[in-house]
């Protein structure tokens, strides 16, 4: 089991109808790693994420969790896999008709046997973790975009998932909140052993948290590089990857690390 990857992508093709967005994506993510999907805008990063959590189905290839196929699983197996996911959407994806506390407590009410006051305690804890103590009874429309995102993160963590999926977590956050988020991600990984899959193009964040990354190239529609971003920056021969990791050549590779 030790060398069994937690997540494995096998030659996945992403497509919208007949239009193939990305070809032949393969990756292995060990348990407790932070896996970053990077690349320019519109290259299919988020699409890959949607495919991994089952909101879309790949045109080809397979996705395995703990060595078991996610795509060929029957409904019950698939449900038990999905139960271990937590997802943070780009805009938070909070249910707008519910308060922040209700947003977090709903999954707990539906999927656990916890008593109401236990649920309330967990909700308070999760909101405190993302720095939203005291905002329990606010509606998503009453808080800022960054706060919505953080509340979305609290909701994603509600059921203590084994894998957290983040779609551009730091987009729209100020640098300080963004760094706190990175720290939170690392502490989730270190303390709870959570595997994190993150779509981002925030370079600082990539270098700060990523154990492993894949670079999706817009032009060739394939994966151009796989590995630790620091190693990639040092070793890569591919101009597209180098350009991305150095902000179009502005940063010296040595300084970027």
């Amino acid at each position, binding site marked *: 089991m030790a060398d069994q990857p937690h997540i494995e992508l096998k030659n996945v093709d992403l497509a919208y109808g007949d239009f193939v967005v990305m070809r032949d994506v393969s990756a292995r993510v060990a348990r407790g790693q932070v896996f970053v999907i990077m690349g320019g805008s519109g290259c299919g990063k988020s699409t890959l994420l949607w495919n991994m959590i*089952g909101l879309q189905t790949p045109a080809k290839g397979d996705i395995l969790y703990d060595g078991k196929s996610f795509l060929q699983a029957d409904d019950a197996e698939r449900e038990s896999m999905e*139960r271990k*996911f937590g997802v943070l959407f780009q805009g938070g994806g909070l249910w707008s008709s519910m308060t922040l506390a209700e947003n977090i407590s709903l999954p707990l009410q539906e999927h656990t046997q916890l008593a109401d006051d236990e649920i309330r305690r967990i909700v308070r804890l999760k909101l405190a973790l993302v720095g939203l103590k005291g905002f329990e009874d606010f509606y998503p429309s009453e808080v800022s975009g960054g706060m919505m995102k953080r509340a979305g993160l609290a909701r994603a963590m509600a059921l203590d998932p084994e894998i957290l999926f983040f779609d551009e977590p730091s987009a729209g956050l100020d640098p300080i909140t963004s760094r706190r988020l990175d720290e939170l991600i690392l502490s989730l990984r270190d303390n709870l052993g959570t595997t994190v899959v993150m779509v981002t193009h925030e370079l600082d964040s990539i270098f700060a948290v990523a154990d492993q990354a894949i670079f999706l190239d817009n032009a060739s529609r394939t994966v151009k590089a796989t590995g630790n971003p620091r190693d990639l920056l040092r070793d890569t021969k591919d101009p597209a990857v180098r350009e991305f990791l150095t902000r179009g050549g502005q940063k010296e590779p040595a300084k970027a690390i």
Partner: protein
Amino acid sequence: MSHIVTGTFDSHCALRGFTPGGNTGSDLDAPTESLPPPRVDFQSPNAGRCVVRLSGDWTVKSTGRPHPAPDANLSSNSTVAFDLNDVSDWDSALLAWLLELLIVLDQRSIRYQMETLPGGVRRSLELARAVPERTDTPPHGETSGWLARVGLGAQRGWTATKHIAEFVGDCTLAMTSLVRGRAQFRRADLLLFMQEAGAEALPINLLISFLVGLILAFVGAVQLQQFGASIYVANLVAIAMVREMGCIMAGIIMCGRTGAAYAAQLGTMKVNQEIDAFRTFLFNPIDFLVMPRMLALFLMMPILTLFANLAGIAGGVLIGIGMLDLTWLEYWHQTVHALTFKHCAAGFMKSFVFGLIVAISGCYNGMRCPNNAAGVGQATTTAVVAGITSIVIADAVFAVLFNIFKF
């Protein structure tokens, strides 16, 4: 006036008469006639060389820009240089013109000297041309030709039919689990939707139905009075309201009111990824979002219809007593006499069906809404149009069925 692209000029190629800040403040209202018109001259001092000499005001405020087509007899082995010394002021208008000129020159493979352009202009143009146009973008726009359009339309129609069937199937499954007592939605949601589709919709329903009853009675009264049969206005109004108009009017009002609201709510939720969020937490969006709405309309519609019927009959009473000099008792007696169980049952049955139609039309269109603001508007429109059309078609089907079964 602020330039869209800030024009910064190198000192060695500063333009004569150019003011770095451009026209400011008071010049905003200045008539455009006072600006020197933009002009272009294609001059060929010697063979193989062409100078594009621009002069005048090249801003978005100036008018009468010439067409950016170089001399037709400019041969492909000549070199083009630019002379912008007489340009008094410029902004994006100049850049757009030059960009188009460069495209024309490229197409005719005529060389040009970018370095003869002032620094700011040159750098802006280089920026605009830095990223080559993507040619491998997904197919966009449709092929024309009416045959292709008819075919695509038919395909879309077939896909939509399959989607609706799938949606109705999902709803049926969800309904089954609801009946088995495994409902997955929040009770508070259901009560809220019942309030919205019930009590809050009542006043508009009462008003419209009252007026419809009144109109029916009025039209009937004018005709029936000629035969001395004014008392039959009561029959006319009672049967028409209870059998047809009550449930149809309630259905149409609810379609425009609640069906549209459902489509907009669910559409916005889809745009905000709230529906995706439900899926990731293993909540079935049909169970969680569609069922309470459908149930609310299914339960409230017959009640609204009942009130609509009463309001319509009240409208008839007003005409009967006010215009035809009937007495309360006469009208009441005639109405009770006219209404049979079959009439009431027919209207009641239809009201359940219309409730489902409104809910399905609203929720289906909301759930399948494209992920943008225009999509939400479109979904709402479709929900109302499809809902009202379906109600009228369903009513026609009912009329035929009732006729066949002598109901």
